[in-house]
């Protein structure tokens, strides 16, 4: 009976990756490798002001002094930075911004991914910034949003049009010295999204960035900066896919969020980078630094992530709770199947009084997947009445995978209340048979059970994406139960 269960498991978790196609788009690529020269070329390509070039160079020089950390519970093949192309962009078009001047192949690519570059009526609730390899190719609903004073554009445009905002906030939450991959990003980042919600404005639509890696041997280094001014609200979603390739590709991004007084930011991620094949060949290295600063009083930042892709996921979307009464939340579902690895979690740093944080992490391991939760709850001396609740659950499918939890607590204030709960469970053969006996196939049964397990997190996603996320969970575990 062990054998049967293995078979079902392996059937359900060996489904195919749907977004593995490659598009033949005319690209402008710089030679591979990394040097000060390359940093200057990237900056020149983007016609950047001197201050930004200086920021890049300072980061690059600092990076040279750093070593890749070895503390995560991950096996990472050595990365040769001289073999990576650090900038690749679709060839310059005559009239940027106009949909007609976008390479039709590029449009087809996004159509195939289900991301409309046209502003379509039935998708009027979502504004999209589409990023392919190193650059943003189109941002929809820019004008509609501008009427309310909301700025939503590519990072490059923001540097040109809103240099003061960029200068003021860039690096304020994730400094250029922060960590190995954040410092690398600060040196070579090429594009990303920028968003500013003015005082008192509730953003009427979901803002989203769709990241696509297309070119071979190319790294993607984007930067997202999101600022929610006083009393504002925004819900933001990012999605990511990449072609199937035998070599690993590096994605090292930075996301910075600033929430001023009474502002609320909801940041959701549906990460579906190419996970590698069944033998563990290829796949994206997803090494990302995401951090939000609850700067103002009573502000709130909420991270929700559904991580199903990438060969290796290594990220900790975190909150610095500086404002009094501010709130940080982290809801995560991370799936590792076949030979995927994930070391993910969060850091909640309580600085202000009466700050609250909630952590709900759900790991799902199948195949030979290894899933680690790593989280830090830190309560500083002046953070009286800080409160944290953490819940880490692990679900195992099969007996070759692993789940690990590394919770850390540093509490320097005796009024803090910190709670931690953890569970580990296995999808049982009895549960599957019970579903079978009611007419539900084994695959559907696993889908039901996994989605039931992840429901608490999926419910935090914007409605339109919750359904997608459910399907994605099922697909990424296809062929895994056996």
């Amino acid at each position, binding site marked *: 009976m062990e054998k049967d269960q293995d078979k079902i498991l392996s059937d359900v978790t060996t489904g195919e990756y749907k977004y593995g196609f490659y598009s033949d788009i005319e690209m402008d690529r710089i030679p591979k490798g990394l040097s000060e020269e390359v940093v200057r070329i990237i900056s020149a390509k983007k016609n950047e002001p001197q201050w930004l070039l200086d920021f890049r160079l300072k980061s690059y020089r600092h990076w040279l002094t750093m070593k890749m950390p070895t503390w995560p519970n991950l096996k990472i093949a050595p990365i040769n930075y001289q073999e990576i192309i650090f900038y690749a962009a679709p060839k310059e078009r005559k009239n940027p911004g106009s949909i007609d001047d976008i390479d039709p192949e590029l449009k087809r690519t996004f159509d195939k991914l289900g991301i409309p570059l046209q502003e379509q009526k039935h998708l009027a609730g979502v504004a999209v910034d589409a990023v392919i390899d190193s650059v943003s190719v189109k941002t929809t609903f820019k004008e509609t949003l501008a009427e309310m004073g909301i700025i939503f554009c590519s990072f490059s445009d923001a540097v040109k049009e809103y240099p003061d905002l960029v200068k003021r906030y860039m690096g304020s939450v994730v400094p250029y010295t922060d960590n190995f991959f954040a410092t690398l990003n600060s040196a070579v980042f090429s594009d990303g999204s920028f968003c500013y919600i003015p005082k008192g404005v509730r953003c009427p639509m979901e803002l989203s960035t769709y990241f696509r890696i297309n070119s071979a041997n190319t790294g993607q280094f984007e930067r997202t900066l999101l600022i929610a001014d006083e009393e504002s609200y925004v819900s933001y979603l990012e999605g990511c896919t990449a072609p199937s390739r035998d070599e690993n590709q590096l994605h090292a991004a930075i996301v910075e969020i600033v929430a001023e007084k009474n502002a609320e930011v909801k940041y959701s991620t549906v990460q579906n980078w190419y996970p590698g094949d069944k033998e563990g060949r290829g796949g994206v290295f997803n090494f990302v630094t995401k951090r939000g600063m609850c700067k103002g009083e009573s502000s709130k930042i909420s991270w929700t992530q559904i991580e199903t892709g990438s060969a290796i996921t290594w990220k900790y979307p975190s909150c610095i709770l500086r404002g009094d009464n501010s709130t940080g939340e982290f809801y995560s579902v991370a799936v590792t199947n076949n030979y995927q690895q994930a070391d993910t979690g969060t850091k909640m740093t309580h600085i202000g009084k009466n700050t609250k944080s909630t952590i709900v992490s759900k790991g799902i391991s199948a195949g030979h997947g290894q899933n680690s939760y790593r989280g830090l709850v830190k309560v500083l001396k002046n953070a009286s009445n800080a409160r944290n609740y953490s819940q880490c659950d692990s679900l195992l499918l099969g007996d070759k995978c692993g789940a690990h939890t590394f919770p850390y607590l540093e509490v320097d204030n005796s009024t803090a209340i910190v709670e931690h709960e953890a569970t580990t469970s296995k999808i049982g053969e009895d549960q599957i048979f*019970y579903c079978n006996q009611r*007419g539900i196939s084994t695959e559907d049964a696993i889908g039901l059970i996994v989605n*039931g397990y992840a429901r608490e997190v999926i419910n935090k996603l914007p409605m339109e994406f919750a359904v997608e996320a459910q399907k994605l969970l099922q697909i990424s575990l296809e062929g895994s139960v056996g």
Partner: protein
Amino acid sequence: MLIINNLKASIGGKSILKGISLNVKPGEIHAIMGPNGSGKSTLAAVLAGREFVEITEGTVTYLGKNLLEMAPEDRAKEGIFLGFQYPIEIPGVSMVNFMKTAVNEHRKHKGLDPLSASDFLKLMRDKKELVEIDSKLANRSVNEGFSGGEKKKNEIFQMAMLEPKLAILDETDSGLDIDALRIVANGVNKLKRPDNSFIVITHYQRLLDYIVPDVVHVLYDGRIVKTAGKELALELEEKGYDWIKKEIENNVVS
């Protein structure tokens, strides 16, 4: 409906069923009684398609088809329902979602469109009343945190939702107080029709005060050793299983 012929089965090399033959016709209720360890639950497991039971000999024909070749979910969709002796908990999966999936799989099998959300909820409401199940149960996860009695009532509720042709109730009465027993039995009686059948597996006679069987079989050591009308159940209640055991041993001697 169901014809079992000389069925032999073992678990982990140990022979459990040693040649069972049974013929269940549409509209009939069969009770299978017997002491612990006689093979009652193994028989239920074979009919539902549990893979840990190894079939070594015999045939099972259900509605003219070879039942033993069918996958468990196909048996279910063809109308076989097993009321579990120990219903399984599935945390995080709501009863509504679970039943909706099951009902729609059954409909798909019959070439019908899925039920609309409102039709489905109406069906749930109707059936809940039928089996007097607490309406809050429907919003909870499948069997999670249910009391023993609630779990058994939930089995009957699912049976009502799926309207099987052949329902096998595996010791549904065990662990029930008298009220729950009455509700479970009422559920069965209300669902009984001329074209569907029940196999009620029980250790005690008391369930058969409420569900009146057409035929009573006594299973002992992997064989059906006695078959008679409903009066057999009463006789067993009075004399216990030792009487049967003695009778068999005497037969062997003589």
